[in-house]
């Protein structure tokens, strides 16, 4: 008996002996320890007072059953601790009809229940709205939830026991599933996106987690799939990708690229077409910065772009520019670029815009303007020609009278010998007027068919100088003819005279404000060529402008002086003559050198 008492007192489980009417006859130490009451207090209490009100009915029922001879096994209820919290206790009990006592043994399972409940909640949260299925080791479906049935369009009966391949959409290659099976059969979790096929043939996309489930022996017993429906986002992504592809294709056709500038970091984001237009190699993970982007314009246009970008960043003013870009490969092309500010919380956070390759359009525009200039020039020359023709008639007749009488005066010895020289001067002056009128007529002659013939180069030069003489005199510019060479070139006399006159006029404009004013014209004979260099006392053209002087519309003159042919038309005329013009510095002075093939 003593041993039983020891067993009762030393037991690690809760033990008690109670009466059916609710009294505790005896409790062990674990009992008092579990509920925190002093031993004697417990014996004076009704044990029904310790039971949680919600568990009271079930506990009374269990007690009644005990009285009827049933055994209580793993009956759980909540008992109040001395600190007023509750402990969950799992009871096993039997009733002794002889002594009319109940012998009960309990184990506190509060922690296990709480943990189980927590795990339950986690599980609920994890699988909420999830599509769940479970297959055996062969892949035959052994479980699936309602959501799976709803999404696939199959009933539970249609799927249970069937192999998962039933839903295969034939989209993934064999290797995809081989890899999947290899991983999960090795006990690892697999995750990925799988395209499945519904009963009606439509596709649905599942972001899938396949978890191997192990039995007690550590052997894989089944595979649990927890999936999330991604059909909408995949479809949208597909549509978005396609839209992006179309946009890219359209951009490529229109040669329009996009860009965005992060104001805070100075980082530029470019579309593929922008990289293509600017011939910049796309480096993975590297974005160009604003200063690099600005360097992709020609030096004269960098300030324009920089100013527009700065204004857009500070004031939000949008811009649109037609400028010349110099690509990473060094090619120069016309581009249209615009930009606008983007705001967040009232602050400018980025600029975005487009860049378009307009080289073809701009070239056509330039060509058109060049032709327009040429035809304007031609029209001007026709008017001048008509004026010169009528002037020649009106001047030449009275000139003939002056010349004729001067001639007669000498021939008839009508003037004293001391005056003969004066009359000779009248004749010479008349001859000069005649020459000027004739030169002007030749200069302004516009033949419908250009006549190319062998011409004396020196004569052409002298005629051009003669026509420029009034301006040379007005501006007090000295002309120095050097190393004159008598030789012939095959040319349209008038056009070459026009070229030379324009170069001389340009030189007059350039030196007119200098103290030292001269123009040196030198003819040099080379083995196959005659070269004419026209050097003036000007100090050359700024190096950054030198490569542009032959461009159409380019001028350093003010609007009222920028008349004449322009160097671009001169280049055009010389090309027709298989001749060329070069700019060079001659002892620090501006010099244009013309090279003609010998006739």
């Amino acid at each position, binding site marked *: 008996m003593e041993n039983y008492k020891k067993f009762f007192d030393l037991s690690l489980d809760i033990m008690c002996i109670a009466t059916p009417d609710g009294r505790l006859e005896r409790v062990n130490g674990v009992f008092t320890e579990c509920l925190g009451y002093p031993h004697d207090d417990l014996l004076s209490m009704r044990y029904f007072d310790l039971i949680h009100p919600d568990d009271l009915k079930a506990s009374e029922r269990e007690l009644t059953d005990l009285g009827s001879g049933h055994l209580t096994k793993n009956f759980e209820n909540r008992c109040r601790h001395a600190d007023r919290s509750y402990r969950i206790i799992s009871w096993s009990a039997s009733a002794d009809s002889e002594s009319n006592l109940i012998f009960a043994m309990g184990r506190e399972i509060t922690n296990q229940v709480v943990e189980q409940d927590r795990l339950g909640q986690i599980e609920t949260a994890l699988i909420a709205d999830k599509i769940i299925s479970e297959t055996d080791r062969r892949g035959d479906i052994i479980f699936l939830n309602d959501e799976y049935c709803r999404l696939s369009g199959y009933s539970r009966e249609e799927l249970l026991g069937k192999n998962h391949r039933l839903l295969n959409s034939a989209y993934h290659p064999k290797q995809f599933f081989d890899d999947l099976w290899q991983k999960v059969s090795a006990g690892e979790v697999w995750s990925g996106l799988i395209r499945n096929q519904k009963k009606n043939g439509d596709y649905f996309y599942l972001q899938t987690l396949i978890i191997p489930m192990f039995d007690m022996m550590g052997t894989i017993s089944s595979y649990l799939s927890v999936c999330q429906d991604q059909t909408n986002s995949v479809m949208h992504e597909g549509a978005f990708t396609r839209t992006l592809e179309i946009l890219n294709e359209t951009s490529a056709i229109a040669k329009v690229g996009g860009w965005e500038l992060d104001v805070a970091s100075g980082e530029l984001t470019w579309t593929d077409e922008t990289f293509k237009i600017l011939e910049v190699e796309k480096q993975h993970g590297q974005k160009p910065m604003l200063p690099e982007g600005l360097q992709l314009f020609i030096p004269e246009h960098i300030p324009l772009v920089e100013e527009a970008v700065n204004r857009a960043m500070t004031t939000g003013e949008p811009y649109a520019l037609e400028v010349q870009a110099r690509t990473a490969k060094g090619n120069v092309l016309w581009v249209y670029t615009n930009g606008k500010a983007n705001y967040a919380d009232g602050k400018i956070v980025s600029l975005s815009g487009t860049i378009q390759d307009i080289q073809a359009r701009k070239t056509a525009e330039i060509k058109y303007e060049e032709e327009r200039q040429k035809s304007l020039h031609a029209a001007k020359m026709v008017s001048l020609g008509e004026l010169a*023709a009528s002037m*020649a*008639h009106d001047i*030449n*007749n009275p*000139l*003939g*009278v*002056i*010349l*004729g*009488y001067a*001639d*007669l005066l000498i*021939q*008839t010895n009508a003037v004293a010998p001391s005056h003969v020289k004066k009359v000779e001067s009248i004749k010479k002056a*008349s001859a000069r007027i*005649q020459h000027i009128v*004739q030169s002007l*007529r*030749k200069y302004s*002659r516009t033949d419908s068919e250009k006549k190319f013939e062998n011409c004396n180069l020196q004569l052409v030069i002298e005629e051009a100088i003669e026509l420029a003489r009034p301006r040379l005199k007005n501006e007090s510019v000295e002309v120095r003819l050097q190393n004159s060479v008598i030789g012939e070139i095959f040319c349209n006399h008038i056009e070459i005279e026009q070229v030379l006159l324009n170069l001389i006029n340009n030189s007059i404009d350039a030196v007119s404000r200098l103290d030292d004013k001269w123009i040196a014209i030198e003819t040099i004979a080379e083995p196959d060529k005659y070269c004419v260099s026209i050097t003036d006392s000007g100090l050359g053209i700024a190096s950054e402008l030198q490569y542009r002087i032959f461009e159409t519309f380019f001028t350093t003159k003010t609007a009222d002086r920028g008349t004449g042919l322009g160097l671009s038309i001169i280049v055009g005329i010389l090309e027709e003559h298989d001749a060329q013009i070069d700019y060079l510095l001659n002892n620090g002075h501006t010099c244009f050198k013309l090279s003609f093939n010998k006739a």
Partner: protein
Amino acid sequence: MTEKFEIYYLDDEQDLCDIVEEYGEIANIAVSTFTNHENAIAACADTEPDILFIDYRLQGITGDKVAQRISDAVTKVLVTVELQPPTLAGFSSVLAKPFDLKDFLEIITKYREAKF
């Protein structure tokens, strides 16, 4: 200069006609001048000259039209300021205006020597 060699000069500029006439006297050339083309045509019909100098731009008519109305037997010289006269048909020579009297004489000499 015994053989008769007659020059007609047609120009609506009276001063030029006077110069040519006076030069004819000095150079001993028989020169008749006309400022009216109808008078010149009539004179040619009456007595054909050896050379007829015709100015291109005349009052109301051009020299080539006048030339067409003159016998082919008459040597015609076009006097003009034009760089390229529209036509040279019917003319034997061209004398560019304004001319030096020695150029005028050169042409006359050339045809007179050919005649005699």
